[in-house]
């Protein structure tokens, strides 16, 4: 019965967000589809948001939640512009992966 009243501490939440951030990083490194890479960036942003909220509760400070608000706004703007760029590229050459976008290579 004693094991049932274990309360997850801030360290648990921080470790979970570290795992989530790592999965997002590996996804960006491994995947080829630009849309899926964008989704992995969203995973990393969410891991950081979870860290902010956790540390805000740990430090007993509302600023941790206020900055998550701004991160959400910036993430939305980033997705809109990034998807606009992807649409503009894909309209010309469909079925492309990020490996094919190497014109700037020296």
């Amino acid at each position: 019965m004693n094991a049932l009243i274990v309360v997850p501490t801030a360290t648990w939440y921080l470790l979970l967000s570290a795992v989530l951030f790592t999965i997002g990083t590996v996804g960006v490194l491994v995947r080829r589809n630009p849309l899926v890479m964008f989704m992995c960036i969203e995973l990393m942003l969410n891991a950081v948001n979870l860290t902010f909220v956790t540390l805000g509760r740990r430090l007993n400070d509302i600023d941790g939640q206020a900055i998550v608000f701004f991160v959400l706004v910036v993430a939305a703007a980033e997705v809109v512009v990034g998807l606009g760029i992807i649409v503009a590229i894909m309209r010309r050459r469909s079925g492309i992966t990020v490996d094919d976008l190497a014109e700037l290579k020296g």
Partner: protein
Amino acid sequence: MELFVFVCATVMIIVGALGVVLRKHPVHAALSLVLTLFGIAVMFVAQHAEFLAAVQVIVYAGAIVVLFLFVIMLLGVDQVENLKTEPLAGQRWIAGVVGASLLGLLAAAIYTGADSVVSRGEGIASNVVGDNPDANIQQLASSIFSDYVMAFEVTSILLVVAVVGTVLLARRRTAGKS
């Protein structure tokens, strides 16, 4: 109870994140992303950030993932990606090593820095113990609109720039005009 919520939300988050990375079909990856985002929202509720949980569901699951699905359908890029081929030799292996070392670094930072954070804030109003049901929203609003009102205004400029830039990017150039 909080442990039960934590375990369930952790399973949701990890399964969803692995689904984003491992599913071949982009639509399946987007739906796995929704699972992860809902798990994060549950975590926000568990940490008494109710307003952020609502915003997370509305903005991320409601707007961003729908935008992803729109682009996937619009471009017809929903063909299955071949995950077997490896265009750069040894890239997966190196990515695994990089990920493992990153996770080790983060875990080491969490464990060594866990005791160095001290409470110095003025406290977070909680909806659960207080008699005011809107305590979280009111405190967050008074923080954003007093301490961070300048950042809030800059955010509005950022949104306008993003909208104008996207309209310019998505515009079809007609013949004759440059």
